Protein backbone atom coordinates (compact mmCIF):
# COMPACT_ATOMS: atom_id res chain seq x y z
CA UNK A 1 0.00 0.00 0.00
CA UNK A 2 1.19 3.48 -0.97
CA UNK A 3 4.35 5.49 -0.49
CA UNK A 4 5.81 4.89 2.97
CA UNK A 5 7.41 8.29 3.37
CA UNK A 6 10.49 9.13 5.40
CA UNK A 7 11.60 6.99 8.35
CA UNK A 8 10.11 8.06 11.69
CA UNK A 9 11.78 7.63 15.08
CA UNK A 10 10.72 8.23 18.65
CA UNK A 11 13.42 10.11 20.54
CA UNK A 12 11.87 10.77 23.93
CA UNK A 13 8.78 10.48 26.09
CA UNK A 14 7.23 11.46 29.39
CA UNK A 15 4.19 10.43 31.45
CA UNK A 16 2.57 11.84 34.59
CA UNK A 17 1.51 9.42 37.29
CA UNK A 18 -2.11 8.60 36.48
CA UNK A 19 -4.49 9.21 39.37
CA UNK A 20 -8.21 9.35 40.10
CA UNK A 21 -8.02 13.10 40.71
CA UNK A 22 -5.19 15.63 40.72
CA UNK A 23 -6.99 18.94 41.34
CA UNK A 24 -3.72 20.69 42.23
CA UNK A 25 -2.75 20.65 38.53
CA UNK A 26 -4.83 21.43 35.46
CA UNK A 27 -4.36 19.70 32.11
CA UNK A 28 -1.88 22.31 30.88
CA UNK A 29 0.48 21.82 33.82
CA UNK A 30 0.11 18.05 33.65
CA UNK A 31 1.17 18.03 29.98
CA UNK A 32 3.96 20.50 30.79
CA UNK A 33 5.38 18.09 33.37
CA UNK A 34 5.35 15.15 30.94
CA UNK A 35 6.73 17.40 28.17
CA UNK A 36 9.60 18.72 30.29
CA UNK A 37 10.46 15.18 31.38
CA UNK A 38 10.68 14.19 27.71
CA UNK A 39 12.74 17.25 26.74
CA UNK A 40 15.14 16.83 29.67
CA UNK A 41 15.58 13.10 29.14
CA UNK A 42 17.00 13.63 25.64
CA UNK A 43 18.40 17.15 26.05
CA UNK A 44 15.92 18.49 23.53
CA UNK A 45 15.19 22.21 23.58
CA UNK A 46 11.88 23.89 22.86
CA UNK A 47 13.41 25.32 19.69
CA UNK A 48 13.97 21.81 18.29
CA UNK A 49 10.21 21.15 18.13
CA UNK A 50 8.70 21.97 14.73
CA UNK A 51 5.07 21.42 15.67
CA UNK A 52 2.67 19.21 17.58
CA UNK A 53 -0.43 17.04 17.66
CA UNK A 54 -2.91 17.35 20.53
CA UNK A 55 -4.68 14.24 21.77
CA UNK A 56 -7.76 14.51 23.98
CA UNK A 57 -11.12 12.80 23.74
CA UNK A 58 -13.95 14.69 25.34
CA UNK A 59 -14.77 18.38 25.51
CA UNK A 60 -17.46 17.56 28.08
CA UNK A 61 -15.11 16.57 30.89
CA UNK A 62 -13.57 20.02 31.19
CA UNK A 63 -16.36 22.01 29.50
CA UNK A 64 -13.60 23.74 27.59
CA UNK A 65 -13.43 23.67 23.82
CA UNK A 66 -10.01 24.12 22.18
CA UNK A 67 -8.11 22.69 25.14
CA UNK A 68 -5.42 21.78 22.62
CA UNK A 69 -4.44 25.34 21.90
CA UNK A 70 -4.33 26.06 25.63
CA UNK A 71 -1.69 23.35 25.99
CA UNK A 72 0.18 24.52 22.89
CA UNK A 73 0.19 28.03 24.41
CA UNK A 74 1.26 26.87 27.90
CA UNK A 75 4.12 24.77 26.50
CA UNK A 76 5.47 27.76 24.58
CA UNK A 77 4.89 26.09 21.22
CA UNK A 78 2.91 28.93 19.61
CA UNK A 79 3.04 29.98 16.77
CA UNK A 80 4.16 26.57 15.48
CA UNK A 81 1.72 24.27 13.63
CA UNK A 82 -0.58 22.04 15.65
CA UNK A 83 -3.86 20.20 15.33
CA UNK A 84 -6.17 18.13 17.44
CA UNK A 85 -6.89 14.50 16.58
CA UNK A 86 -9.88 12.75 18.17
CA UNK A 87 -11.27 9.25 17.88
CA UNK A 88 -12.74 8.12 21.21
CA UNK A 89 -10.60 5.67 23.14
CA UNK A 90 -8.22 5.41 20.18
CA UNK A 91 -7.49 9.14 20.30
CA UNK A 92 -3.95 8.59 21.63
CA UNK A 93 -3.10 5.94 19.05
CA UNK A 94 -4.48 8.07 16.23
CA UNK A 95 -2.59 11.16 17.44
CA UNK A 96 0.65 9.17 17.71
CA UNK A 97 0.16 8.02 14.11
CA UNK A 98 -0.65 11.57 13.00
CA UNK A 99 2.63 12.70 14.55
CA UNK A 100 4.38 9.92 12.62
CA UNK A 101 2.70 11.17 9.44
CA UNK A 102 3.95 14.72 10.08
CA UNK A 103 7.50 13.32 10.08
CA UNK A 104 6.99 10.76 7.28
CA UNK A 105 5.61 13.45 4.98
CA UNK A 106 8.70 15.59 5.54
CA UNK A 107 6.63 18.43 6.92
CA UNK A 108 8.33 18.32 10.32
CA UNK A 109 11.69 17.07 11.60
CA UNK A 110 10.56 16.96 15.23
CA UNK A 111 6.94 16.61 16.34
CA UNK A 112 5.62 16.58 19.90
CA UNK A 113 2.50 14.46 20.42
CA UNK A 114 0.81 15.35 23.69
CA UNK A 115 -2.19 13.60 25.20
CA UNK A 116 -4.27 14.39 28.25
CA UNK A 117 -7.64 13.92 29.89
CA UNK A 118 -9.10 15.36 33.09
CA UNK A 119 -11.92 13.06 34.12
CA UNK A 120 -12.15 14.09 37.78
CA UNK A 121 -14.34 17.17 37.21
CA UNK A 122 -17.46 14.99 37.24
CA UNK A 123 -18.49 11.95 39.30
CA UNK A 124 -17.86 8.45 37.92
CA UNK A 125 -21.45 7.91 36.74
CA UNK A 126 -21.67 11.27 35.00
CA UNK A 127 -18.30 10.40 33.48
CA UNK A 128 -19.76 7.15 32.18
CA UNK A 129 -22.60 9.20 30.70
CA UNK A 130 -20.16 11.50 28.89
CA UNK A 131 -18.27 8.50 27.54
CA UNK A 132 -21.54 6.85 26.48
CA UNK A 133 -22.25 9.89 24.31
CA UNK A 134 -19.59 8.33 22.08
CA UNK A 135 -22.20 5.71 21.18
CA UNK A 136 -25.03 6.51 18.73
CA UNK A 137 -27.22 8.98 20.62
CA UNK A 138 -30.31 8.18 18.51
CA UNK A 139 -30.31 4.41 18.95
CA UNK A 140 -27.76 3.11 21.47
CA UNK A 141 -27.29 5.72 24.17
CA UNK A 142 -31.01 5.99 25.11
CA UNK A 143 -31.35 2.20 25.45
CA UNK A 144 -28.62 1.69 27.98
CA UNK A 145 -25.94 4.28 27.49
CA UNK A 146 -23.12 2.39 29.21
CA UNK A 147 -19.96 1.11 27.57
CA UNK A 148 -19.38 -1.60 30.15
CA UNK A 149 -22.82 -2.92 29.15
CA UNK A 150 -21.88 -2.98 25.47
CA UNK A 151 -18.56 -4.76 26.17
CA UNK A 152 -20.33 -7.16 28.51
CA UNK A 153 -22.62 -8.22 25.65
CA UNK A 154 -19.57 -8.77 23.45
CA UNK A 155 -17.92 -10.80 26.21
CA UNK A 156 -21.04 -12.96 26.65
CA UNK A 157 -21.05 -13.69 22.92
CA UNK A 158 -17.30 -14.46 22.96
CA UNK A 159 -17.93 -16.90 25.83
CA UNK A 160 -20.80 -18.50 23.88
CA UNK A 161 -18.90 -18.71 20.61
CA UNK A 162 -15.54 -19.91 21.96
CA UNK A 163 -16.06 -21.17 25.49
CA UNK A 164 -14.13 -18.33 27.09
CA UNK A 165 -14.60 -18.33 30.88
CA UNK A 166 -14.90 -15.65 33.55
CA UNK A 167 -11.81 -17.13 35.20
CA UNK A 168 -9.84 -16.45 32.01
CA UNK A 169 -11.06 -12.84 32.09
CA UNK A 170 -9.97 -12.64 35.73
CA UNK A 171 -6.48 -13.87 34.83
CA UNK A 172 -6.02 -10.81 32.60
CA UNK A 173 -6.93 -8.58 35.54
CA UNK A 174 -4.50 -10.44 37.81
CA UNK A 175 -1.68 -10.19 35.27
CA UNK A 176 -2.10 -6.50 34.50
CA UNK A 177 -2.72 -5.28 38.06
CA UNK A 178 0.22 -7.45 39.16
CA UNK A 179 2.59 -6.02 36.53
CA UNK A 180 1.64 -2.51 37.66
CA UNK A 181 3.11 -3.16 41.11
CA UNK A 182 6.47 -2.37 39.51
CA UNK A 183 5.23 0.62 37.50
CA UNK A 184 5.45 3.84 39.55
CA UNK A 185 3.23 5.67 37.05
CA UNK A 186 0.32 3.25 37.49
CA UNK A 187 -2.91 4.21 39.22
CA UNK A 188 -4.04 0.86 40.64
CA UNK A 189 -1.31 -1.71 41.17
CA UNK A 190 -2.61 -4.74 43.06
CA UNK A 191 -1.91 -8.36 43.82
CA UNK A 192 -5.18 -10.12 43.06
CA UNK A 193 -6.69 -13.60 42.98
CA UNK A 194 -9.45 -14.97 40.78
CA UNK A 195 -11.77 -14.76 43.80
CA UNK A 196 -10.88 -11.08 44.31
CA UNK A 197 -11.87 -10.33 40.72
CA UNK A 198 -15.04 -12.41 40.70
CA UNK A 199 -16.17 -11.20 44.14
CA UNK A 200 -15.73 -7.51 43.38
CA UNK A 201 -19.02 -5.76 42.55
CA UNK A 202 -20.66 -6.86 39.30
CA UNK A 203 -20.81 -3.90 36.91
CA UNK A 204 -22.42 -5.61 33.91
CA UNK A 205 -22.37 -9.40 33.72
CA UNK A 206 -19.78 -10.93 33.31
CA UNK A 207 -17.60 -7.87 33.98
CA UNK A 208 -16.86 -6.99 37.60
CA UNK A 209 -15.27 -3.83 38.93
CA UNK A 210 -11.83 -5.46 38.52
CA UNK A 211 -12.50 -6.38 34.88
CA UNK A 212 -12.95 -2.69 34.03
CA UNK A 213 -10.47 0.21 33.84
CA UNK A 214 -10.81 3.38 35.92
CA UNK A 215 -11.31 7.07 35.18
CA UNK A 216 -8.11 9.04 35.52
CA UNK A 217 -6.39 12.38 35.31
CA UNK A 218 -3.15 12.15 33.37
CA UNK A 219 -0.93 13.27 30.53
CA UNK A 220 1.69 11.71 28.26
CA UNK A 221 4.06 13.09 25.64
CA UNK A 222 5.93 11.41 22.79
CA UNK A 223 8.60 13.22 20.77
CA UNK A 224 8.97 11.91 17.21
CA UNK A 225 11.72 12.84 14.76
CA UNK A 226 13.10 12.28 11.28
CA UNK A 227 16.10 9.97 10.85
CA UNK A 228 18.64 12.76 10.59
CA UNK A 229 17.28 14.68 13.55
CA UNK A 230 16.68 11.54 15.63
CA UNK A 231 20.34 10.51 15.59
CA UNK A 232 21.40 14.09 16.22
CA UNK A 233 19.17 14.30 19.32
CA UNK A 234 19.61 10.78 20.66
CA UNK A 235 22.07 7.91 20.60
CA UNK A 236 19.23 5.48 21.28
CA UNK A 237 16.14 6.35 19.23
CA UNK A 238 13.42 3.80 18.45
CA UNK A 239 12.11 3.27 14.92
CA UNK A 240 8.37 3.70 14.31
CA UNK A 241 8.37 0.96 11.70
CA UNK A 242 4.78 0.93 10.48
CA UNK A 243 1.27 2.03 11.29
CA UNK A 244 -2.14 0.45 10.72
CA UNK A 245 -5.65 1.71 11.37
CA UNK A 246 -9.06 0.10 11.08
CA UNK A 247 -12.65 1.16 11.62
CA UNK A 248 -16.02 -0.47 12.16
CA UNK A 249 -19.69 0.47 12.36
CA UNK A 250 -20.77 2.84 15.09
CA UNK A 251 -23.62 0.59 16.23
CA UNK A 252 -22.73 -2.89 17.43
CA UNK A 253 -26.01 -4.00 15.88
CA UNK A 254 -24.74 -3.22 12.37
CA UNK A 255 -21.60 -5.40 12.54
CA UNK A 256 -21.66 -7.88 9.68
CA UNK A 257 -21.85 -11.63 10.15
CA UNK A 258 -19.47 -12.50 7.35
CA UNK A 259 -16.03 -13.99 6.74
CA UNK A 260 -12.89 -13.52 8.82
CA UNK A 261 -10.36 -10.92 7.67
CA UNK A 262 -7.34 -13.22 7.40
CA UNK A 263 -3.74 -12.57 8.44
CA UNK A 264 -0.83 -14.12 6.48
CA UNK A 265 -0.54 -17.00 8.97
CA UNK A 266 -4.22 -17.97 8.64
CA UNK A 267 -6.38 -19.65 5.99
CA UNK A 268 -10.10 -19.59 5.29
CA UNK A 269 -10.49 -23.21 6.40
CA UNK A 270 -9.42 -22.18 9.93
CA UNK A 271 -12.81 -20.52 10.33
CA UNK A 272 -15.40 -22.60 8.50
CA UNK A 273 -18.35 -21.85 10.76
CA UNK A 274 -17.44 -18.50 12.27
CA UNK A 275 -19.64 -15.51 11.44
CA UNK A 276 -17.34 -12.53 11.59
CA UNK A 277 -16.91 -10.09 13.20
CA UNK A 278 -20.36 -10.23 14.77
CA UNK A 279 -20.13 -8.74 18.22
CA UNK A 280 -17.48 -11.17 19.51
CA UNK A 281 -14.48 -9.75 17.61
CA UNK A 282 -13.04 -6.43 16.53
CA UNK A 283 -12.72 -6.25 12.76
CA UNK A 284 -11.11 -2.80 13.11
CA UNK A 285 -8.38 -4.32 15.30
CA UNK A 286 -7.73 -7.06 12.78
CA UNK A 287 -7.68 -4.52 9.92
CA UNK A 288 -5.22 -2.28 11.79
CA UNK A 289 -2.95 -5.24 12.58
CA UNK A 290 -2.99 -6.43 8.99
CA UNK A 291 -1.88 -3.04 7.66
CA UNK A 292 0.80 -2.63 10.33
CA UNK A 293 2.15 -6.17 9.78
CA UNK A 294 2.27 -5.59 6.04
CA UNK A 295 4.27 -2.40 6.56
CA UNK A 296 6.72 -4.14 8.91
CA UNK A 297 6.97 -7.39 6.95
CA UNK A 298 5.53 -9.41 9.84
CA UNK A 299 3.96 -12.74 8.86
CA UNK A 300 3.98 -14.56 12.21
CA UNK A 301 3.20 -11.98 14.91
CA UNK A 302 3.60 -14.28 17.92
CA UNK A 303 7.14 -15.15 16.83
CA UNK A 304 8.06 -11.71 15.57
CA UNK A 305 6.83 -9.46 18.40
CA UNK A 306 8.54 -9.33 21.80
CA UNK A 307 6.30 -6.94 23.71
CA UNK A 308 2.80 -5.48 23.26
CA UNK A 309 0.95 -2.67 25.00
CA UNK A 310 -2.69 -3.12 24.05
CA UNK A 311 -5.94 -1.38 24.90
CA UNK A 312 -7.36 -3.42 27.80
CA UNK A 313 -10.17 -1.12 28.94
CA UNK A 314 -11.86 -4.43 29.78
CA UNK A 315 -10.29 -7.82 30.52
CA UNK A 316 -12.51 -9.28 27.80
CA UNK A 317 -11.16 -6.87 25.20
CA UNK A 318 -7.58 -7.96 25.97
CA UNK A 319 -8.56 -11.55 25.19
CA UNK A 320 -10.46 -10.47 22.07
CA UNK A 321 -7.42 -8.43 21.00
CA UNK A 322 -4.97 -11.38 21.29
CA UNK A 323 -7.06 -12.89 18.51
CA UNK A 324 -7.46 -9.72 16.43
CA UNK A 325 -3.68 -9.28 16.49
CA UNK A 326 -3.20 -12.87 15.37
CA UNK A 327 -1.19 -13.90 18.46
CA UNK A 328 -3.50 -16.90 18.35
CA UNK A 329 -6.47 -17.89 16.20
CA UNK A 330 -9.98 -16.59 16.82
CA UNK A 331 -11.37 -18.59 19.69
CA UNK A 332 -8.01 -19.30 21.33
CA UNK A 333 -7.72 -16.08 23.35
CA UNK A 334 -8.89 -17.72 26.58
CA UNK A 335 -6.34 -20.52 26.26
CA UNK A 336 -3.68 -17.91 25.45
CA UNK A 337 -3.97 -16.36 28.92
CA UNK A 338 -4.44 -19.78 30.57
CA UNK A 339 -1.14 -20.93 29.08
CA UNK A 340 0.62 -17.83 30.37
CA UNK A 341 1.71 -16.77 26.91
CA UNK A 342 1.01 -13.08 27.59
CA UNK A 343 2.72 -12.99 31.00
CA UNK A 344 5.75 -10.80 31.55
CA UNK A 345 8.02 -13.77 30.94
CA UNK A 346 5.67 -15.52 28.55
CA UNK A 347 5.91 -15.95 24.79
CA UNK A 348 5.09 -12.26 24.25
CA UNK A 349 4.76 -9.83 27.17
CA UNK A 350 1.35 -8.17 26.89
CA UNK A 351 0.78 -5.03 28.94
CA UNK A 352 3.93 -5.28 31.05
CA UNK A 353 3.08 -1.74 32.26
CA UNK A 354 -0.22 -2.93 33.70
CA UNK A 355 -2.19 -1.68 30.72
CA UNK A 356 -5.20 0.58 31.04
CA UNK A 357 -6.71 -1.72 33.67
CA UNK A 358 -4.00 -0.89 36.19
CA UNK A 359 -2.18 2.14 34.80
CA UNK A 360 -5.44 4.07 34.42
CA UNK A 361 -7.20 5.41 31.35
CA UNK A 362 -7.10 9.21 30.97
CA UNK A 363 -8.42 8.68 27.46
CA UNK A 364 -6.38 11.11 25.33
CA UNK A 365 -3.20 10.22 27.22
CA UNK A 366 -3.57 6.42 27.20
CA UNK A 367 -2.42 5.73 23.64
CA UNK A 368 0.56 8.07 24.06
CA UNK A 369 1.41 6.43 27.39
CA UNK A 370 1.59 3.09 25.59
CA UNK A 371 4.01 4.68 23.11
CA UNK A 372 6.21 6.00 25.93
CA UNK A 373 6.29 2.71 27.84
CA UNK A 374 7.06 0.85 24.60
CA UNK A 375 9.82 3.35 23.79
CA UNK A 376 11.44 2.71 27.17
CA UNK A 377 11.06 -1.06 26.73
CA UNK A 378 12.80 -0.96 23.34
CA UNK A 379 15.46 1.45 24.59
CA UNK A 380 15.99 -0.92 27.53
CA UNK A 381 15.64 2.03 29.90
CA UNK A 382 12.73 0.80 32.04
CA UNK A 383 15.03 0.65 35.07
CA UNK A 384 16.02 4.28 34.62
CA UNK A 385 12.43 5.52 34.34
CA UNK A 386 10.63 3.11 36.70
CA UNK A 387 13.53 2.91 39.23
CA UNK A 388 12.93 -0.83 39.01
CA UNK A 389 13.83 -3.20 36.18
CA UNK A 390 11.31 -5.93 37.04
CA UNK A 391 9.15 -4.98 34.04
CA UNK A 392 11.97 -4.71 31.50
CA UNK A 393 11.25 -7.32 28.82
CA UNK A 394 14.53 -9.08 28.19
CA UNK A 395 15.80 -8.86 24.61
CA UNK A 396 12.87 -6.63 23.58
CA UNK A 397 13.60 -5.74 19.97
CA UNK A 398 10.21 -5.22 18.41
CA UNK A 399 6.90 -4.14 19.91
CA UNK A 400 3.34 -3.25 19.03
CA UNK A 401 1.13 -0.59 20.56
CA UNK A 402 -2.63 -0.87 20.10
CA UNK A 403 -5.27 1.76 20.80
CA UNK A 404 -9.02 1.17 20.57
CA UNK A 405 -12.16 3.31 20.54
CA UNK A 406 -15.54 2.30 21.96
CA UNK A 407 -16.83 -1.11 20.81
CA UNK A 408 -13.96 -1.25 18.30
CA UNK A 409 -14.97 1.65 16.06
CA UNK A 410 -11.45 3.01 15.52
CA UNK A 411 -8.42 0.82 16.25
CA UNK A 412 -4.75 1.59 15.67
CA UNK A 413 -1.73 -0.72 15.65
CA UNK A 414 1.79 0.70 15.46
CA UNK A 415 5.01 -1.32 15.22
CA UNK A 416 8.13 0.01 16.93
CA UNK A 417 11.66 -1.40 16.69
CA UNK A 418 14.87 -0.99 18.67
CA UNK A 419 17.75 0.19 16.50
CA UNK A 420 20.57 0.01 19.02
Amino acid at each position, binding site marked *: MKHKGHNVYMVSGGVTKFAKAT*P*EMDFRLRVKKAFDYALNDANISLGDIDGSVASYFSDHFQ*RQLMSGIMVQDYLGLTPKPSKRVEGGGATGGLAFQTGAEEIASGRMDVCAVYGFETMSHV*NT*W*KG*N*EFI*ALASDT*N*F*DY*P*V*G*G*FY*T*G*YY*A*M*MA*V*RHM*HEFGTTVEQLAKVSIKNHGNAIHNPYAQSPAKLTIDDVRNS*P*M*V*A*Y*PLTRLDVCTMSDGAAVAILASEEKAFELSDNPVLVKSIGTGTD*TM*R*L*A*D*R*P*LGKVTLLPNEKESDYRNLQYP*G*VHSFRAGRTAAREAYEGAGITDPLEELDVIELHDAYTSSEIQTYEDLGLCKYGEGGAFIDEGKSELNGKVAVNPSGGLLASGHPVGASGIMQGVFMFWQLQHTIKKHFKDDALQVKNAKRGLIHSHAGTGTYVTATIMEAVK
Partner: protein
Amino acid sequence: MTINPDAKMPETQSGTEVYSFDPLVVKSHYEIDYIHSYAQDSEFFRALGKKKLMGSKCKKCGYTYATPRGHCMMCGSETEWYQLPNEGRIHTFTTCYFGSEEFLPETPFNLIMVEFDGVDSLFMARLIGADLEDMKIGMKVRAKFRRNQKISPTDVYFVPI
Protein backbone atom coordinates in the same frame (compact mmCIF):
# COMPACT_ATOMS: atom_id res chain seq x y z
CA MET B 1 -21.83 61.78 28.67
CA THR B 2 -21.76 58.83 31.11
CA ILE B 3 -18.19 58.89 32.44
CA ASN B 4 -18.57 57.83 36.09
CA PRO B 5 -15.46 56.81 38.08
CA ASP B 6 -17.75 55.71 40.95
CA ALA B 7 -19.56 53.07 38.81
CA LYS B 8 -20.05 49.84 40.78
CA MET B 9 -21.08 46.32 39.73
CA PRO B 10 -24.30 45.45 41.60
CA GLU B 11 -23.82 42.85 44.34
CA THR B 12 -26.20 39.84 44.46
CA GLN B 13 -27.11 37.25 47.09
CA SER B 14 -26.25 34.31 44.82
CA GLY B 15 -22.96 32.61 45.60
CA THR B 16 -20.68 29.79 44.48
CA GLU B 17 -20.34 26.42 46.16
CA VAL B 18 -16.74 25.86 47.20
CA TYR B 19 -15.53 22.30 47.71
CA SER B 20 -11.94 23.10 48.65
CA PHE B 21 -9.73 26.16 49.17
CA ASP B 22 -6.35 24.65 48.32
CA PRO B 23 -6.54 24.06 45.46
CA LEU B 24 -9.61 26.19 44.98
CA VAL B 25 -12.36 23.88 43.71
CA VAL B 26 -15.82 25.27 42.94
CA LYS B 27 -19.12 24.00 41.54
CA SER B 28 -19.80 24.87 37.91
CA HIS B 29 -23.31 24.14 36.54
CA TYR B 30 -24.28 23.43 32.91
CA GLU B 31 -27.65 22.61 31.37
CA ILE B 32 -29.05 22.79 27.86
CA ASP B 33 -32.08 21.78 25.77
CA TYR B 34 -31.32 20.63 22.23
CA ILE B 35 -33.67 20.83 19.25
CA HIS B 36 -32.83 17.32 18.11
CA SER B 37 -33.95 16.10 14.67
CA TYR B 38 -34.25 12.40 13.87
CA ALA B 39 -34.06 13.52 10.25
CA GLN B 40 -34.01 10.58 7.79
CA ASP B 41 -34.58 8.16 10.69
CA SER B 42 -37.87 9.83 11.73
CA GLU B 43 -40.05 7.08 10.28
CA PHE B 44 -38.55 4.51 12.67
CA PHE B 45 -39.73 6.49 15.70
CA ARG B 46 -43.16 7.30 14.22
CA ALA B 47 -43.68 3.60 13.42
CA LEU B 48 -42.99 2.57 17.01
CA GLY B 49 -46.17 4.49 17.92
CA LYS B 50 -48.07 2.19 15.52
CA LYS B 51 -46.46 -0.84 17.21
CA LYS B 52 -44.27 -1.51 14.19
CA LEU B 53 -40.55 -2.16 14.24
CA MET B 54 -39.03 -0.84 11.01
CA GLY B 55 -35.69 -1.88 9.55
CA SER B 56 -33.96 -0.92 6.33
CA LYS B 57 -33.44 -2.89 3.14
CA CYS B 58 -31.01 -1.95 0.40
CA LYS B 59 -32.84 -1.26 -2.85
CA LYS B 60 -29.85 -2.43 -4.87
CA CYS B 61 -28.08 -5.32 -3.12
CA GLY B 62 -30.94 -6.40 -0.87
CA TYR B 63 -28.90 -6.36 2.39
CA THR B 64 -31.31 -6.14 5.30
CA TYR B 65 -30.74 -4.13 8.47
CA ALA B 66 -32.56 -4.50 11.76
CA THR B 67 -31.76 -0.82 12.34
CA PRO B 68 -32.75 2.36 10.51
CA ARG B 69 -30.08 3.21 7.97
CA GLY B 70 -30.65 5.58 5.04
CA HIS B 71 -27.89 4.15 2.88
CA CYS B 72 -26.38 0.68 2.61
CA MET B 73 -22.93 0.11 4.16
CA MET B 74 -22.28 -2.71 1.69
CA CYS B 75 -22.87 -0.87 -1.59
CA GLY B 76 -23.69 2.75 -0.75
CA SER B 77 -27.17 2.65 -2.30
CA GLU B 78 -30.35 4.04 -0.79
CA THR B 79 -32.40 1.76 1.44
CA GLU B 80 -36.15 1.47 1.88
CA TRP B 81 -38.16 0.84 5.04
CA TYR B 82 -39.53 -2.60 5.72
CA GLN B 83 -41.25 -4.08 8.73
CA LEU B 84 -39.26 -6.41 10.97
CA PRO B 85 -40.83 -9.49 12.52
CA ASN B 86 -42.12 -8.98 16.07
CA GLU B 87 -40.32 -12.07 17.26
CA GLY B 88 -36.61 -12.79 17.31
CA ARG B 89 -33.93 -14.50 19.40
CA ILE B 90 -31.34 -13.30 21.90
CA HIS B 91 -27.97 -13.02 20.11
CA THR B 92 -26.25 -11.85 23.29
CA PHE B 93 -27.21 -10.24 26.59
CA THR B 94 -26.07 -8.63 29.81
CA THR B 95 -27.49 -7.22 33.02
CA CYS B 96 -26.19 -3.78 33.99
CA TYR B 97 -25.90 -3.24 37.74
CA PHE B 98 -24.39 0.21 37.27
CA GLY B 99 -24.80 2.69 34.46
CA SER B 100 -24.50 6.22 33.27
CA GLU B 101 -25.96 8.73 35.72
CA GLU B 102 -29.10 9.09 33.62
CA PHE B 103 -29.85 5.36 33.83
CA LEU B 104 -28.57 4.59 37.35
CA PRO B 105 -32.10 4.75 38.84
CA GLU B 106 -33.16 2.02 36.36
CA THR B 107 -30.44 -0.47 37.37
CA PRO B 108 -30.34 -3.39 37.28
CA PHE B 109 -31.58 -3.61 33.69
CA ASN B 110 -31.05 -6.11 30.89
CA LEU B 111 -29.57 -5.25 27.50
CA ILE B 112 -29.87 -7.68 24.61
CA MET B 113 -28.95 -7.83 20.95
CA VAL B 114 -31.82 -9.38 18.97
CA GLU B 115 -31.41 -11.47 15.83
CA PHE B 116 -34.35 -11.93 13.44
CA ASP B 117 -34.81 -14.70 10.87
CA GLY B 118 -33.82 -13.51 7.42
CA VAL B 119 -32.32 -10.22 8.62
CA ASP B 120 -28.61 -9.59 8.12
CA SER B 121 -27.94 -7.41 11.18
CA LEU B 122 -28.97 -7.13 14.83
CA PHE B 123 -31.04 -4.81 17.04
CA MET B 124 -30.12 -3.58 20.54
CA ALA B 125 -32.87 -3.25 23.12
CA ARG B 126 -33.92 -3.68 26.74
CA LEU B 127 -35.37 -7.00 27.85
CA ILE B 128 -37.80 -7.08 30.76
CA GLY B 129 -39.59 -9.98 32.43
CA ALA B 130 -36.42 -12.03 32.89
CA ASP B 131 -33.46 -12.05 35.28
CA LEU B 132 -29.83 -12.65 34.39
CA GLU B 133 -30.17 -16.36 35.20
CA ASP B 134 -33.15 -16.63 32.83
CA MET B 135 -31.52 -15.15 29.75
CA LYS B 136 -29.92 -17.55 27.26
CA ILE B 137 -28.47 -17.04 23.82
CA GLY B 138 -31.00 -18.32 21.27
CA MET B 139 -33.96 -17.65 23.60
CA LYS B 140 -37.08 -16.42 21.77
CA VAL B 141 -38.19 -12.88 22.53
CA ARG B 142 -41.09 -10.70 21.40
CA ALA B 143 -41.18 -6.93 20.79
CA LYS B 144 -43.61 -4.87 22.88
CA PHE B 145 -44.33 -1.19 22.51
CA ARG B 146 -44.98 1.58 25.00
CA ARG B 147 -48.52 2.98 24.85
CA ASN B 148 -47.33 6.48 25.77
CA GLN B 149 -44.48 7.09 23.36
CA LYS B 150 -41.37 8.86 24.54
CA ILE B 151 -40.11 9.17 20.95
CA SER B 152 -37.06 7.17 21.95
CA PRO B 153 -35.69 3.76 20.89
CA THR B 154 -36.95 2.50 24.27
CA ASP B 155 -40.50 2.82 22.90
CA VAL B 156 -39.84 -0.76 21.84
CA TYR B 157 -38.62 -3.37 24.33
CA PHE B 158 -38.58 -7.13 24.43
CA VAL B 159 -40.03 -9.81 26.66
CA PRO B 160 -39.32 -13.56 26.76
CA ILE B 161 -41.84 -15.77 24.95
